[in-house]
């Protein structure tokens, strides 16, 4: 494995400005969707971004493709910052970075056939010369993702959810990217179909030396596919580390709760489960100090005043908490 990071994210933030629907009222609120996050991904590595709805994981994915403009921070691809690049420069970057979307129904145009859908990125990047060339490349891509090239003239409605996700994957790998953001690629799929797509993603990674940012709330799938895991809470990464460390000895109390909350098939309910009180606070009013303190079983006065920073708690495992200790009892079994 190459040691130089392919993608590096430094102090990346994104705030959204909320205006009151009453235009004469001037109370503007900002939502800090992503707040000063840092991570890096090496070639052929999968970093999983986990967390609950609204924690900023999808926004982070969009920022990496510049589908949203970052408020501040740097995004480096092979050492070059493109957080402020113009659209012309971005065209070159997007050939290297692609995305697979969550919703296999909403992310394919219903009016275009499979050939048009998959050939579009090839045309946009000038990688095909004529229609015969297009058909040849698209049929090779379809075979690669396990679909029949005969299906080229069909429309998305004629395919099942799993097949549509394969089409989305074929479109993403069409331009031979080095890095793919996969935003909940299997969440909308049935269990048996999920297994097919997870296998396909792993095969493609092996064959094409791809790096993935795998955004998911499904911890079982994450444990299967990831090399490293970053846990987000209210726009911040609160723990990051190698997969085995995060699953076997999570350090941050939120990670511990998350790991213990997911019911595992085949285990009875006697499992010690940490049940957090209440809901995630609104991102419009993030608590002072540690963002997790309102639900944290370990919270003390200092958590309200001083924000914990990410510290190395184990070689290459980082957590942001004043008190916690690794807790192997509550880990994901």
């Amino acid at each position, binding site marked *: 494995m190459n040691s130089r990071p392919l993608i590096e994210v430094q102090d990346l933030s994104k705030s959204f400005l909320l205006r009151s629907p009453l235009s004469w009222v001037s109370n503007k609120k900002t939502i800090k969707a992503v707040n000063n996050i840092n991570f890096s991904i090496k070639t052929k590595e999968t970093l999983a971004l986990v967390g609950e709805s609204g924690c900023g994981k999808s926004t982070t994915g969009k920022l990496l493709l510049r589908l949203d403009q970052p408020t501040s921070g740097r995004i480096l691809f092979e050492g070059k910052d493109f957080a402020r690049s113009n659209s012309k420069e971005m065209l070159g970057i997007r050939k290297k970075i692609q995305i697979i979307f969550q919703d296999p129904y909403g992310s394919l145009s219903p009016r275009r056939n499979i050939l048009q859908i998959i050939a579009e990125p090839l045309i946009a990047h000038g990688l095909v010369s004529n229609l015969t060339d297009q058909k040849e490349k698209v049929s090779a891509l379809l075979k690669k993702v396990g679909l029949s090239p005969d299906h080229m003239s069909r429309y998305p409605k004629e395919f099942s959810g799993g097949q549509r996700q394969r089409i989305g994957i074929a479109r993403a790998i069409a331009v031979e990217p080095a890095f793919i953001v996969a935003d909940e690629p299997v969440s909308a799929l049935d*269990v048996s179909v*999920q*297994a097919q797509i997870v296998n396909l993603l792993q095969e493609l990674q092996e064959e094409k030396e791809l790096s993935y940012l795998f955004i998911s709330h499904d911890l*079982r799938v994450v444990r299967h596919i990831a090399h490293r895991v970053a846990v987000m809470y209210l726009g911040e990464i609160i723990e990051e580390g190698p997969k085995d460390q995060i699953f076997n000895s999570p350090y941050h109390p939120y990670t511990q709760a998350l790991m213990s909350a997911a019911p595992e098939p085949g285990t009875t309910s006697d499992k010690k489960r940490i049940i*957090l009180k209440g809901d995630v606070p609104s991102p419009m009013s993030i608590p002072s100090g540690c963002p997790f303190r309102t639900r944290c079983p370990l919270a003390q006065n200092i958590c309200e005043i001083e924000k914990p920073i990410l510290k190395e708690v184990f070689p290459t495992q980082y957590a942001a908490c004043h008190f916690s200790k690794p807790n192997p009892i509550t880990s994901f079994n």
Partner: protein
Amino acid sequence: MKPYLLSVKNLSIDFDTSDGIIRVVDGVEFNLNAGECIGIVGESGSGKSMTSLALLRLIPGPHGKISTGSIELDGKDINQIPVQEMRSIRGKEIAMVFQEPMSSLNPVMTIGDQIEEALLLHETLEKTARKQRVIEILRLVGIPNPTERLGSYPHEFSGGMRQRVMIAMALSCNPKILVADEPTTALDVTIQAQVLDLLKKLRKEFNTAIILISHDFGVISDIADRVFVMYCGRIVETATIDTIFSSPAHPYTEGLLKSIPSKNNLGRLYQIPGQVPSPSERGKGCDFFDRCTKQMTKCSQSKPHLETINGTHAVACFAINNQA
């Protein structure tokens, strides 16, 4: 022997479509005792949601209808009773929690009024007593400051809180049976843990029987006593939770369990070959025939029926039943 609280026999549901009549649920049978929790698990299109809707006679008409079978509640077939009488059972005897806490609440009614509605229909309580009861239920399901939240609208609640309101509404008249169709699918995992915990507590305190519909074996194994696996509208296997995980018998159940990533399943995931056949592709043979690892000639000729192989463990598969 004590009679069952609910007994479903040979239930079939047909839909009249432009492609002809499609049977979405075919000969489903199960029994439920008071205070018991059963899980129905299956993939999209397996008929599990339609089965749950049939229990409340909520199959969307005019195209869908229960074509055969009976649903006996305390010995009375609720499929045969007049609509008026069914209304007195819905919400009172059998209540339902839907999957979508966002869209199953009325956005222009306060949650207090929505919960009170069921009490107005089914109970004869004074106004103040009704209000007390609503507050009591909201407290029970874990809504903080219930007295103040009575006047809140659904949009003022988060997803998990709305699901609690849905559960509160279903519980308002102390139903004997709670049908929960994917109650935690739309929720985050820490909130899911809270809701599952609540369902367990209700079962313990009020002896409510629960029918839990889910696609997630994890959720089912967390709360249910027995599980029914559905495939293409039919029950293909039923067993206790422990048995289904330790010794699944039907090739479909086995494949499904092997395809779930877990600690001991870290290599390449098992893939069930092929796809679920669409209703028009289903023939006279076993619906799993094309994808099955244990197929025999017999399987393409007729559909296997559920047969007991061991105690409460029953399976619909010729390959298994012939050996047993």
